[in-house]
C-alpha cells in the first residue's frame, strides 16, 4: 500500500465492512425509534405521537403515526439485515424528510434549540441517501439472495 492509496482509496473489503458497521448502527437506530413510537422503549406512546402529529396540523394523524412507525421498524430492519436494503433506505428516508420538514418546522437547525431543530432528522436523511447510493455490500442478505444462492 502506497501512501497515496491510504489517503485516496479503499478496497472492496473495507467498503463491505464499512457498510456492515454503518447498516447495523443506523438500522438499529431506526428500529429503536419505531419501537419508541409503539411505546415499547422509552417514554413515548402511539397515542402521544399521534396527538403531536395532529397538533402540527398533519392530515390523518392516526394513519400517519402508524405509517411512520411501520416504515421505521421495517426500514430499519431492512437496512440492518441488508435484506432489500435499498428499499429500506427509501422507507427511512421518507420518514426523515417528513420529520425534518414538518416535525421540526420552526425549530431551526440545532437540536438544542427550543423547539428542537431538525439536524438529527436531516443527518439521518443524508445517511439514507448515502446508503442508497452505496448499496448493502457483501455482508448482507441481499448479496446472497441476488447472487442466486
Amino acid at each position, binding site marked *: 500500500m502506497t501512501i497515496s492509496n491510504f489517503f485516496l482509496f479503499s478496497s*472492496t*473489503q473495507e467498503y*463491505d465492512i464499512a457498510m456492515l458497521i454503518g447498516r447495523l448502527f443506523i438500522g438499529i437506530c431506526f428500529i429503536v425509534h419505531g419501537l419508541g413510537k409503539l411505546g*415499547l422503549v422509552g417514554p413515548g406512546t402511539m397515542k402521544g405521537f399521534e396527538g403531536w402529529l395532529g397538533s402540527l396540523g398533519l392530515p390523518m394523524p392516526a394513519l400517519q403515526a402508524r405509517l411512520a412507525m411501520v416504515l421505521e421498524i421495517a426500514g430499519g*430492519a431492512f437496512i440492518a*439485515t441488508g*435484506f432489500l436494503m435499498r428499499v429500506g433506505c427509501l422507507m427511512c428516508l421518507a420518514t426523515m424528510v417528513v420529520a425534518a420538514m414538518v416535525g421540526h418546522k420552526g425549530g431551526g437547525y440545532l437540536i438544542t434549540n427550543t423547539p428542537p431543530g431538525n439536524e438529527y432528522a436531516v443527518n439521518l436523511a443524508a445517511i439514507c441517501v448515502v446508503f442508497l447510493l452505496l448499496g448493502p455490500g*457483501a*455482508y448482507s*442478505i441481499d*448479496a*446472497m*439472495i*441476488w*447472487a*442466486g*444462492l
Partner: protein
Amino acid sequence: MKKENIKLIAYWITTVLGPTSFLIGGVLHLMRAQQPLVQLAHLEYPWYFIYIIGFWKLAGAIVITMPGVPLLKEWAYAGFFFLLTGAAASHIFVGDPFFRVEAPSQFFPPLLFLALTIASWALRPPSRRLKGA
C-alpha cells in the same frame, strides 16, 4: 412484551428473511437471470435445473407465506430443507469455501437460509400448524 408476541415477531422475521425471500430467487431462476445461471453452471448442474428449482422455490415461498394450508406448508418446509442442504453439499463437492466475499461459490449462504427456514418452521404459530403437530 408477552412471550407469545416475541415468538410471533421472531416467526415473521425468520419467515420473511428465509422462506418468503425465495420469491426473489424463484423469479430470478424462472427469468433465467445471469447470477443463478452462472451459479448452476459452476455447480455443474444441467441448464434445465434453473426451471425446476425456480418453480419449486416460488411455489414453496408462496405456500409458506400465505395463510392456511398447514399440510402443504410441511411439504414446502421439507422441500426447502432438501434444497438448502443439497445446495450446501453441492458447493462442498465442487470445492467451494465456507465463506468468500465475492459471491457465489460458497456454502455459507445455503446454511444461513437453512437456519432461517428451520427457525421459521419451529416458531410457526398454531394457526399455521397441522392439528396435533
